[in-house]
């Protein structure tokens, strides 16, 4: 260690004590490095000038993208994924727009408004808190819950409102023949100055939630946040997995093997029923029916086989396309266990054709039991119910079905002949054949129930037994579980409700499709800096989004930056190479001058490594001094070039040049200077250390 210290001491003594000889070397190296440093500074300055405009406006770091080219729709999950994958994302704002009509809220003091205000159409765009477009005008917060809105200057002028005042917004929607109109009160929280482009446009920005709600509203859905129910025209459609087919017994009237294979080819599995409550429709058919009729059950199987064109729910189609004569198909859903006003019931869905309709012959079997009834197929009013007379619920005014999902659905207790006839049989009070609020969807067929032979009690018992003996028992129903008859539509909806496809809209008393989460197709994305834009654009384009951004300009600037960098590097490399050569020759020369010294050191027993270290370290010190000199001069020059001295008469000629020396560049140059000096010294150092000591002395004398 002390030996290395000795070498370093000797090297630095050589540099500083023989300064007149070394200063030139320092100046030469510094002079080589300075132009490179300035060049880098000029390049940085130029690029910074180019970027300034883009970097200050929010559009610089804006990327608009939309799912036009197979990009995934922008659900919350997709947006979150984009945010995480792209990186350096400031905010992503899904784009949505809606036309609304605004008018200022009439204050109590109506005089303020000289002339009656007209409605102003306003195109509302989506935004989020932290939207750079709004932040540049000082709007940092916008709330969806509070119904806040930022308006364009033109809109504000036309409406005669100001920040802080309120705005009536009229919404309209249409579904079929239905038209609806609602009013909302928005609060104006900001004004956007109009720019030349789009001047005079009455636009506004509202929280994305508001736009989402507007979307729901226009689609006819209920908007819970605004207390608006779904439109009456909205109703979900019913779907069925199974059907029951009734045929007369006999060769030509049952389903032929052709029929069965036809049905199977359309995705329906055919099962001939030999037992079970379906055979007599849970006891609603007369005993004779079992002897005269054959019952099949059709179950939908997979439609995944591409060769299958499925028959969906059309009973008509099936009946028409089978060879069996006079067959009858019914949509079927297996009974559902629910609680009605807290009492467990099995709901049996029966929607039978009327006497006049195809398959109306079924009614003749009901006539025999006096239980002739039918629910018409209706999605508009599925919530009807009939109870056997024995049901504890019979006659209750208000009934609520509690579903497994916790929904409570009010039912119309459709007092009907079915009930009436049963009651007649037991001699209890007759119920009016039609209740005032039951429309003709429940048609009580007058079949002279009183003359029927079957006893109501036996029928009721049979129903209970049947239910008990069926799947419901397995599902946990008690053997005493009473049944209730409902339109099969209700069962279909209850199933769909279970799987979350539909929901019950209490406003319109209907089952409506669950509004799917609003998926956007377009969004504005802001990266943290403009430099992140190209990467984001690349990612989005790869994910098949159409993208619009300033990335081409940014890329151009980055490209310029890069090509200038390359230019500088090429120049620097050239200068560096010549620098090394210069330093090399300078150091070779100065080492040659030191041959004598080196010789005597070797004579005195210094190792070759010692001599090598001294020469190298000396060069290192020179490089260090040069680097310091270069950086000091570089920064001073940059400062001078940047200085705007136009006022000064003496320096009026001097243009203002932006030179930005970045510390990393400076370090790089310093490193380069050191490297250059060290590289330039290696060969002389090796040569010096390899000299014959005595020759070195003799040659040194003449050096």
């Amino acid at each position: 260690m002390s030996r290395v210290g000795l070498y370093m001491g000797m090297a630095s003594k050589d540099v500083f004590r023989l300064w007149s000889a070394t200063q030139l070397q320092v100046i030469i190296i510094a002079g080589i490095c300075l132009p490179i440093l300035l060049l880098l500074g000029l390049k940085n300055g130029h690029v910074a000038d180019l970027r300034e405009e883009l970097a200050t406006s929010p559009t610089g770091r804006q990327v608009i993208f939309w799912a036009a080219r197979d990009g995934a729709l922008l659900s919350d999950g997709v947006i979150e994924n984009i945010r995480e994958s792209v990186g350096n994302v400031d905010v992503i704002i899904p784009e949505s727009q809606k036309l609304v009509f605004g008018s200022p809220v009439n204050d109590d003091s109506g005089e303020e408004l000289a002339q009656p205000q007209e409605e102003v159409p306003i195109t509302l765009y989506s935004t989020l808190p932290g939207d750079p477009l709004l932040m540049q005008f000082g709007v940092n917060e916008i709330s969806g819950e509070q119904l806040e809105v930022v308006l364009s200057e033109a809109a504000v002028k036309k409406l005669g409102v100001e920040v802080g005042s309120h705005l009536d917004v009229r919404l309209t929607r249409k579904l079929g023949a239905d038209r609806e109109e609602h009013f909302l009160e928005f609060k104006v929280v900001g004004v956007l100055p109009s720019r030349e482009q789009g001047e005079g446009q009455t636009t506004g920005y509202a929280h994305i939630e508001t736009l989402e709600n507007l979307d729901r509203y226009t689609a006819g859905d209920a908007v819970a946040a605004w207390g608006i129910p779904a439109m009456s025209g909205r109703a979900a459609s019913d779907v069925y997995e199974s059907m029951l087919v009734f045929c007369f017994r006999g060769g030509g009237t049952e389903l032929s093997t052709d029929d069965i294979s036809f049905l199977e080819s359309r995705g329906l599995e055919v099962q001939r029923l030999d037992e079970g409550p379906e055979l007599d429709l849970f006891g609603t058919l007369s005993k004779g029916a079992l002897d005269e009729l054959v019952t099949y059950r059709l179950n939908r199987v997979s439609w995944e086989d591409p060769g299958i064109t499925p028959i969906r729910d059309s009973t008509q189609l099936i009946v028409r396309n089978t060879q069996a004569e006079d067959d009858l198909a019914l949509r079927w859903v297996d009974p559902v266990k629910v609680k009605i006003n807290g009492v467990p019931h099995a709901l049996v869905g029966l929607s039978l054709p009327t006497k006049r309709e195809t398959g109306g012959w079924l009614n003749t079997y009901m006539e025999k039991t006096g239980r002739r009834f039918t629910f018409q197929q209706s999605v508009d009013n599925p919530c009807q119910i009939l109870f056997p007379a024995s049901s504890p619920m019979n006659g209750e005014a208000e009934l609520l079905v509690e579903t497994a999902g916790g929904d409570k659905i009010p039912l119309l207790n459709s007092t009907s002949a079915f009930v009436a006839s049963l009651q007649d049989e037991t001699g209890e009070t007759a119920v009016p054949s039609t209740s005032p609020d039951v429309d003709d969807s429940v048609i009580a067929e007058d079949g002279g129930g009183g003359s029927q032979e079957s006893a109501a009690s036996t029928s009721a018992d049979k129903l209970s037994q049947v239910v008990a003996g069926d799947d419901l028992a397995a599902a946990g129903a008690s053997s005493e579980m009473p049944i209730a008859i409902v339109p099969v539509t209700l069962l279909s909806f209850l199933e769909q409700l279970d799987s979350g496809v539909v929901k019950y809209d209490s406003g319109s008393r209907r089952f409506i499709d669950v509004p799917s989460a609003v998926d956007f197709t377009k969004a504005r994305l802001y990266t943290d800096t403009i430099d992140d834009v190209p990467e984001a654009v690349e990612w989005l384009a790869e994910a098949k989004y159409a993208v619009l951004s300033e990335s081409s300009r940014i890329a151009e600037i980055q490209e310029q930056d890069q090509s200038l960098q390359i230019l500088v590097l090429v120049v620097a490399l050239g200068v560096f190479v010549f620098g090394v050569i210069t330093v090399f020759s300078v150091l070779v020369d100065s080492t040659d001058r030191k041959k004598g010294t080196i010789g005597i050191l070797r004579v005195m027993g210094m190792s070759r490594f010692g001599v090598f270290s001294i020469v190298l370290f000396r060069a290192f010190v020179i490089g260090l001094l040069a680097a310091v000199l270069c950086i000091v001069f570089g920064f001073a020059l940059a400062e001078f070039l940047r200085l705007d001295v136009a006022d000064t008469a003496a320096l009026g000629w001097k243009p203002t040049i932006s030179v930005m020396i970045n510390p990393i560049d400076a370090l790089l140059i310093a490193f380069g200077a050191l490297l250059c000096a060290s590289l330039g010294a290696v060969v002389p150092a090796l040569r010096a250390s390899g000299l014959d000591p005595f020759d070195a002395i003799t040659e040194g004398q003449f050096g």
Partner: protein
Amino acid sequence: MASVAEGLNPVLRLSGLRHRLSDRARNEHYTVYVDQCLEFYSRDFIGLLGPSGCGKTTLLTVLGLLRSPTNLDDLSEFELFVPEEVSRDDSWQRIDMREAWQKRKYRLIEKMRRRHIGFALQSGELISSLTVQENIGMPLKLNGAGETEVASRTKELMSQFKLTRLRDSESEGNSTQEQDSDVGNALADSRINRLSGGEYQRVALARSIAHRPSVVFVDEPTSALNRELAHGALSVMRDLQRNRERAGITFMITHDEDLAQEFCNVVVRMAPRRNEPAGEVVEVTRCEIDTEVGSNE
């Protein structure tokens, strides 16, 4: 190792040594022969005389381990005896230089040069970036001596070689007092280019023996000194080499016959051969060391 009972400790022994100088570019060569056995003992002061160009300096570079003998294969003897480092007693260690060169033990050779050999060459060759005292202390420093040791030794040598110069500001009354101290000696911190020719050579001499080497080579040391100064410097040198424990030998190349007669107890004469470009040792004369002179110091 060889301990000589009579007090004659051999320090350098060689025979049958040859060094061939060649200049391939000009197809020239010159060979220096030492055919007889030369043996030098501790305290010897050897004068190497001969006509100019006969190979004195060349022989010196070989003996000084700067260059290898060129006949390593048939070289009979080339040995140095140096004080053993570890032991404090009078034991000497024999180093076979022939083997060292043959086996390319350059680290050993460098170490031998650093520890046991001193040079004061024809032009002195002091290091110009160092001061006088730094130059003198350099061999010690190279051997890893501490600052204080180096400082005291250089101070001692400078006063012994009368390397003193008064600072301008000092009054004459104080001079005697401060001559010994470093502070008073302006020459100590003076740089080499400020020295007179005589001072330069004395510094070179002082440096050559600073680390108490076993062998000191002095190549025409007195050319820049007047006779009186030359005598003074040489006698200091000789006494310092002789009068210490495990004293070393001194080789002095000179053209001055009188100087040789006066200072040297061994005189080696060289002469060029007549028919070939070669020089050889032709005569070695040895007389008793003048003990009186030696014990004076």
